[in-house]
């Protein structure tokens, strides 16, 4: 792509698309909430049924229990949650975001390590390459949510509690993209580069650090971006079977049980923003490490 985009070139499209999404969202809110509003809300305010279309629209956009809350409702809920409560209160969504971020990050770091170690083992061992790799693929077809409760109980009976079980689930989702990308990346050195080190009689360890690892970095970082998103999903999923405790996942869940649709959407929006922040953090790390750049 173009090397450098101007401010407008970069942000105008994003703003336009965001506006389009907002417009769609409002339209969707009216459309989806219409039936409920006519059935449950308008009869209360207009007992004789003399409501107008503008009444309908204003009601659909401000329902207490909408099918799809309007953007401004979500924004107001988010704002009051962030501003009206101290940071360490369970009513402040940032508190929950922090809880989720913590297990995500721990799981991400562990998952990345596991992924890299597994990949290193696989590229160096034919046995592991043949025996393990297919099972690693299969492992990802197991629905995590199904086994998360069991994993949590088992880990608990082994004495792990607190962040550890949640981080483990996050790790389970994180390691896969890293392993796949690193296997590819560690095998990326061309024959000629490998042979060059061969003529120097370099050891395997030297070849790993001097050639394989640097060649794999361009593969690693995109996979890290995938992994951190997967880790976030894992952390949130893992929050469900810990009971309705803290975290954005727990907020989604309790929002649903308490019939608080707006609350669900606030948690949803915040989780997307958290995902964005984490992805940006990984991208920043990438730029830091690959700062010196290379020929594209």
């Amino acid at each position, binding site marked *: 792509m173009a090397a450098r985009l101007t401010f407008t070139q970069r942000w105008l499209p994003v703003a336009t698309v965001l506006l389009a999404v907002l417009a769609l969202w409002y339209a969707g809110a009216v459309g989806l909430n219409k039936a409920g509003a006519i059935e449950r809300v308008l009869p209360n305010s207009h007992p004789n049924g003399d409501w107008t279309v503008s009444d309908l629209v204003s009601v659909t956009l401000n329902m207490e229990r909408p099918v799809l809350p309007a953007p401004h409702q979500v924004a107001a809920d988010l704002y009051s949650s962030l501003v009206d409560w101290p940071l360490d209160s369970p009513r402040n969504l940032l508190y929950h975001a922090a809880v989720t971020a913590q297990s995500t990050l721990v799981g991400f770091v562990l998952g990345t390590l596991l992924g890299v170690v597994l990949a290193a083992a696989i590229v160096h061992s034919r046995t592991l390459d043949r025996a393990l790799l297919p099972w690693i693929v299969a492992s990802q077809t197991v629905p995590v949510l199904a086994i998360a409760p069991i994993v949590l109980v088992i880990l608990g009976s082994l004495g792990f509690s607190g962040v550890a079980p949640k981080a483990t689930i996050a790790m389970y989702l994180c390691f896969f993209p890293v392993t796949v990308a690193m296997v590819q990346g560690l095998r990326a050195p061309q024959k000629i580069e490998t042979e060059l080190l*061969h003529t*120097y*009689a370099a050891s395997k360890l030297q070849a790993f650090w001097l*050639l394989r690892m*640097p060649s794999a970095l361009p593969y690693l970082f995109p996979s890290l971006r995938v992994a951190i998103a997967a880790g976030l999903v894992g952390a949130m999923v893992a929050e469900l079977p810990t009971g309705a405790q803290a975290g954005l996942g727990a907020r989604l869940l309790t929002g649903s049980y308490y019939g608080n649709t707006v609350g669900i959407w606030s948690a949803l929006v915040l989780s997307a923003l958290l995902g964005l922040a984490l992805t940006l953090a990984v991208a920043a790390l990438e730029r830091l490490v690959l700062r010196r750049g*290379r020929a594209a």
Partner: protein
Amino acid sequence: MHAPDRPAAPPATPAPAATQAAVDVRRASVVYPSADAPVHALSDIDLTIAQGEFVSLIGPSGCGKTTLLRVIADLEPITSGTVLVNGLTPHDARLARAYGYVFQAPALFPWRTVLANVMLPLQIQGRDKAAAEAIAREQLGRVGLTGFEKKYPWQLSGGMQQRVSIARALGFEPKILMMDEPFGALDEITRDGLNDQLQQLWQRERRTVVFVTHSIAEAVYLSTRIVVMSPRPGRILKIIDSTLPDARTLDLRDTPEFMALAHEVREGLADGHGAGHGGH
């Protein structure tokens, strides 16, 4: 000019008797296994290269020049026959770091600066950083790249990259230098310049050089002996001893002696070529 005041290369190989051949290939054959029919890349090669010789291998595409070089460098096993390098097997010679190998492509690591690329083999050999850096700077100077130390490979032109790779191979002072079409990708003028430098380097240090090329002029200009090979299965057609003086300049190329040699090589090639054309 530099060579005398540098410490001698570490005696990694048992000091060879002056008469011991640098490379000794006896009845060597290489067959590549293949799905349909095995490929006979080299057949019954006999070749002895003395210490300090500059030997060029020339022949049509696919005749096995690279294969022969790779066999000597322990990058490819032989199917039958024997190969000795400084009296050792290629494997032991490689572990003893007896040779430097220059590939056709520069094979520089894009994440290392030019300087760091040249330091790579020295680091692998465990030299300390300061010493490695000093040697790398000196070698870069010799190939005319002082001032480019901090650049990355992709910031250089193809010719400059190839010069970096030569500096890298020279840095650890291998007894034997193997070069596989090192100048194949360069334009004629740059190539002439590098030929000249390589020639002077050999004059100064008299390392053993095994050189693969497609260019008749290059082979004639550089070598003390030219090995002409036939198309598959690769055989040695002819070995031509150079009649040129050891010290050479580019002007030499317009002399009748040079032309006669070039003609002899071309004829040798043409003899073997007919059948092989289009078949590689």
